[in-house]
């Protein structure tokens, strides 16, 4: 029997009460994370990377235990040995994958096929691992998908769109024969195919992104509460479109400035006056453009997307609200980049904490149930399962 609050095997929820709103609180500090990070990086280096899972657990525990809702902190339960095992498996697979094509084309094809099949399975198990190992108020989260086909539908076509152009190139673009006279028509045909694929990829990318996010946000659960993602694909296209406009705006502004400066540089050189200054100004302009185009659109997208994703996540009993100001977030990222650059990387942990603070403190949880009186009756039936809502906040890929 499907009950009205999402999951099937849970005891009924307590009667709804009035709506309570809880802001997310974040108490991590840059200086403390700096200390944790320095020691982590040193130990990773000295152990040739083997310490990485322990570093990851320390980092996650630090961020989780400093994130509170209604006065209760999150906790991370991941076992470093299990994470190490996952890392080794993935590393072995990736090395085998990259080497397979060297032995025989057929081995390369098999490896490609294996990647297509394994990627969605790895993605799902990573989600399950991360969520099952996160808890709040003493209860683990759970990722509510065991064996649906949805991750395949999200990931395989997207991966194929990424990998096919390269495969086509490798197939046609590598004639061992006379290297000086590769058929021009063949190259043009290959270039056209690759171009078409890239275009199709650009157009469809937001669709697959939306499907992956919908898959994730439809399957988070905590106790009897399971989240739903209530946003159509059009919303995602809108965010992508506005982000593209931001990038375009930057290009137009810098293009205009350059156009104003280039004639001045040329004219100035001829008259021997004001020219050198304009020429010198062009280089910083180019640098500023590269910096802006790398930071602003990405930051804008991140802020708007988090707002969309979390403000549309919930069900009839609870709802999130995310209100990150894109402009503030973009300015913060500019500040982070410059300070990281000028401190030779030492500002990095401060930047991470400042970013998480802005993202987390923009979040709140509204609920009509008493969060302190829920029980997870499903846990008695399944030993290893849970879901998490914090996984995404920490900006990490899911817990491999």
């Amino acid at each position: 029997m499907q009950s009205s609050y999402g999951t099937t095997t849970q005891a009924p929820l307590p009667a709804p009460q009035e709506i309570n709103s809880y802001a997310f609180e974040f108490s991590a500090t840059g200086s403390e994370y700096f200390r944790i990070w320095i020691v982590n990086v040193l130990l990773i280096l000295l152990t040739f990377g083997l310490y990485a899972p322990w570093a990851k657990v320390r980092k996650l525990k630090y961020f989780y235990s400093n994130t509170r809702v209604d006065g209760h902190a999150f906790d991370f339960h991941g076992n470093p040995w299990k994470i190490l095992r996952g890392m080794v498996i993935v590393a072995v697979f990736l090395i085998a994958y990259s080497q397979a094509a060297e032995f025989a084309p057929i081995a390369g094809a098999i490896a490609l096929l294996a990647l297509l099949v394994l990627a969605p399975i790895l993605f799902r198990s990573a989600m399950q691992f991360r969520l099952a190992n996160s808890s709040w108020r003493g209860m683990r989260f759970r990722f509510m998908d065991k064996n649906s086909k949805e991750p395949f539908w999200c990931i395989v076509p997207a991966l194929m769109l990424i990998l096919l152009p390269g495969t086509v190139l490798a197939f046609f673009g590598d004639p061992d024969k006379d290297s000086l006279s590769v058929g021009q028509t063949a190259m043009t045909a290959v270039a056209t195919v690759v171009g078409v694929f890239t275009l199709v990829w650009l157009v469809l990318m937001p669709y697959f992104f939306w499907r992956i996010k919908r898959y994730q946000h439809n399957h988070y659960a905590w106790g009897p509460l399971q989240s739903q993602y209530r946003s159509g694909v059009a919303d995602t296209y809108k965010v992508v479109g506005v982000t593209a406009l931001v990038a375009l705006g930057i290009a137009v502004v810098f293009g205009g400035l350059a156009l104003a400066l280039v004639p001045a540089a040329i004219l100035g050189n001829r008259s021997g006056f004001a020219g050198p200054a304009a020429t010198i100004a062009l280089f910083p302009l180019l640098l500023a453009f590269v910096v802006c185009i790398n930071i602003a659109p990405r930051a804008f997208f991140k802020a708007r997307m988090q707002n969309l994703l979390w403000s549309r996540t919930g069900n009839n009993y609870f709802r999130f609200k995310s209100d990150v100001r894109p402009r503030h977030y973009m300015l913060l990222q500019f500040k982070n980049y410059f300070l990281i650059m000028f401190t030779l990387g030492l500002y990095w942990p401060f930047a991470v904490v400042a970013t998480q603070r802005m993202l987390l403190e923009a979040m709140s949880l509204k609920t009509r149930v008493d969060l302190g009186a829920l029980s997870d009756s499903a846990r008695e039936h399944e030993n290893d399962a849970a879901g998490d809502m914090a996984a995404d906040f920490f900006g990490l890929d899911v817990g491999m």
Partner: protein
Amino acid sequence: MNSRTPAQLHQPPQPPQPLALRYFDGRSSQSRAVQVVIAQQAIHVHSALDASVLHTEPLKGIVWPERTRRGARMVQLASGGQLHADDAAAYDAWAAHQLPQPESWVVRVQQSWPGVAAALAVLVVALLAAYQWGLPVAARGITALVPLSVDEALGRNAMQQIDGRWMRPSKLPVETQTRLRERFAQAMKKAYPQDVPKYQLEFRKSTIGPNAFALPGGTMVLTDELVDLVKDDEVIVGVLGHEIGHVTLRHSMRQVVQLSVLQGVMSVAFGDYGSLITTVPLILGGTAYSRQAEREADANAIAFLNANQISPLVMVKFFTAMAQEQKTKNQTTPLGISIISTHPGDEERIAQFRAAAQAGR
């Protein structure tokens, strides 16, 4: 006299002392106020209301929270339950005396500024050492594991690209080509008497001026302009002795491995911020390793010339001719720009060959 400081001294478990915590059983979000006591290698959770025993489990398997400034203290029980502390300071004081094992030294370092300063100093030294020695040695090891066919595939690819952009078929007379090929084959036999490495010598007319380069897998290219410029077969043998050094030492592959490792480390350390920020260290690292590779190839050229009883001074001739060519043209070619940064200075290299000539006399 006891030489141990109080901090090192592992305090014997003091008489069991209760601590007020909140207990979650793992199946419900409802907590219960409890008093927790550690005794006989087990944790005992008593209800704060009626002192009844709610839970007992052995200490083995419990994950204790680590000390942070404002982070919550949450004990993860092996049974799936949790104990949360409302008062972090009280928990820390209790844990310091009641837990059988001392706090992890990692946490002690992380929570002390002198410890962190020492870690930072060691980190800087370790990074410099890894950059200077560790990575090149590791890259040599990894490169040895990569089959030569990968080098050959890379080289074929690069040759195609270069041919499309900068090279035209050679206009050198066939006799000249044959003569140089035979001269070099002879020199190779002398330099590598046991086993001549696989190579292929190509001639091309270039749009980038006099140049010679080696591609991974053994293809070496001489431009017509270089042959016309030096007009001396012994100089060409020297130049090719340098290039064959790049081939046998697999410098291109090593560079690929080194840069990928460097990029990997950067992205691990800096995560999202990696893409833009790591470009500068990558370029700097790339050119530093490239200069090192040129020095190794120069050393190979010296050994190569010595094996052929040719004075290393022929390379000085080559550098002088190249310098003059650049001066008359008064322009830098596309590859000429890269020579500035990817190669050691001409003076240093000339001095090297002069010294070798002196030593060989």
